[in-house]
């Protein structure tokens, strides 16, 4: 049996257009919400199910939230990046998940927020995140605004250049354009030590890299580890220059938050005792050459890193 359908004249094309628009909006909304909430965990080790006593109490503020909020890099392989599956991955992501496992017994009890060199400290001071684990070198200036945990990695600044480039050292940059990222150690060092270099600063390392490749800068100045990884993946580039501004990386903790600082330091000491850093580094940096090069830059049982006491930025 067919039912006669009558469309009133007034509900013509206009009504249809409105409905189609609404349906489209709904589809977009559903798709957007489905893609949200990427605290998802990919590592096999998901935690013991029980919180681990690291020797210092977890701050009550974090305890009551039931999860740790961490600012990480999302464009910085092999430390913090988004993998092919769209998930957070990298050495620092592993550390963040380990912290969550200590705090709440499961590696998924962590909310990862993408930060950049320029916005990571404001994110922390405005309490959007509990801790920064985002390739942050120790500098006396930064130590005035945030507290640093004990160091968990060490790196210095080098240059990435096209394979056939005549640039061999930082001195060659005088008067030339060079790409960097805003607020990075590389940028701060260049400002002080190669004053005539024309910095072109981007928010993302990926942008600074592609700008260098399209010859908008003769070199890309950044941490040696990132550059080594990029050079290993891009055969038309190479790393040059003596290591500059070498300094350890620490986690950033809100100024004066002693409870958080004590817990993080205790947790890092436990990771060091378990040789977690080296195991995790080998897992995230698969290139054997890069592994070898940076072996002494991770804390291991009996091998600790120290912050420098004097000025870091010697030219």
């Amino acid at each position, binding site marked *: 049996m067919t039912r006669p359908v009558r469309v009133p004249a007034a509900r013509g094309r206009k009504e249809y257009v409105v409905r189609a628009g609404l349906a489209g909006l709904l589809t977009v909304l559903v798709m957007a919400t489905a893609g949200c909430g990427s605290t998802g965990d990919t590592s096999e080790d998901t935690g013991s199910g029980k919180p681990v006593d690291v020797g210092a109490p977890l701050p009550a503020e974090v305890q009551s939230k039931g999860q740790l909020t961490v600012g990480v890099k999302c464009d910085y392989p092999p430390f913090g990046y988004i993998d092919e599956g769209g998930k957070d991955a990298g050495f620092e992501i592993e550390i963040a998940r380990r912290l969550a496992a200590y705090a709440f017994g499961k590696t998924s009890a962590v909310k990862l927020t993408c930060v950049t*060199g*320029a*916005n990571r*400290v*404001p994110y922390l*001071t*405005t309490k959007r995140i509990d801790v920064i684990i985002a390739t942050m070198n*120790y500098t*006396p*200036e*930064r*130590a*005035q*605004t*945030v*507290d*640093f*945990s*004990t160091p968990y990695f060490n790196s210095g600044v080098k240059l990435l250049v096209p394979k056939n480039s005549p640039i061999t050292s930082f001195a060659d940059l005088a008067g030339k354009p060079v*790409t960097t990222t*805003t*607020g990075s150690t590389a940028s*701060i060092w260049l400002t002080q030590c190669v004053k005539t270099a024309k910095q*072109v*600063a*981007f*928010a993302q390392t990926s*942008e600074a890299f*592609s*700008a260098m490749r*399209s*010859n*908008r800068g003769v070199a890309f100045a950044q941490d040696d580890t990132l550059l080594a990884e990029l050079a290993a993946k891009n055969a038309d580039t190479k790393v040059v220059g003596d290591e500059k501004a070498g300094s350890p990386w*620490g986690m950033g*903790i*809100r*100024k*004066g938050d*002693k409870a958080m*600082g*004590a817990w993080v*330091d205790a947790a890092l000491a436990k990771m060091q005792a378990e040789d977690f850093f080296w195991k995790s580094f080998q897992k995230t940096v698969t290139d054997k050459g890069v592994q070898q090069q940076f072996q002494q830059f991770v804390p291991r049982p009996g091998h600790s890193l120290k*912050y420098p006491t004097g000025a870091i930025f010697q030219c």
Partner: protein
Amino acid sequence: MVTGRTVTASGYHFEPGFVFSHLGPLGHGLLRTLAISAIGIGGASAVGVLLGALIALRIPVVRQLIRAYVEVFRNTPLLVQIFFLYFALPDAGLKLGAFTVGWLSLLLWGGAYNVENFRAGFEAVEPVYVEACRALGFSRFAAFRRVVLPLGSRIALPSVTNTLISVFKNSSFMIAIGYPELTDSAVDIVSVTFRVFEVFIAIGVVYLALVWLFSVWARLLERRLAIPGGH
């Protein structure tokens, strides 16, 4: 833990005088903002009048081409357009500098909106005026130039002002390509000194003051051009 020197436990103390020690970079940033905005605003106005007129005059093919331009630039985000001009075009063999991408992207984006603003203005002029002109022996072009253009532009003025204000403010998008305009300079200073409040309040005041001046001028212009008895 490594503890620093001066900051209070609550984390922040406000130093209003701080920005004065960074006036140099902020001033240079402001000049660059004004430079790309001025070219962008001038260009977007010219593009708007010219292409808007061509659409209103209903010239075949040209009209469709202009429509295509408007749709492309109105239906894609400005940020995507900037990234395309800066990062994608070099692969196609055309390398534009950051300054060129700055004013060009503003011009193309603002131009697309202005085409619509002016077209709407021209089409709002009542056909009887054109018919009267034609009856008096004016050519189509002369009728447009002497009657539709002056009347339609007046009608379009408020929405054109809106678009041009957006063009000015959108110059801050150039931070994406590291062009050191005002916002980029500010973020650069913040990334090293962490004086978030002082720096952003300062540039906020600068943007506010400049846009306010511009809109006051636009309102004066509107009043001055208003036809007694009104259209």
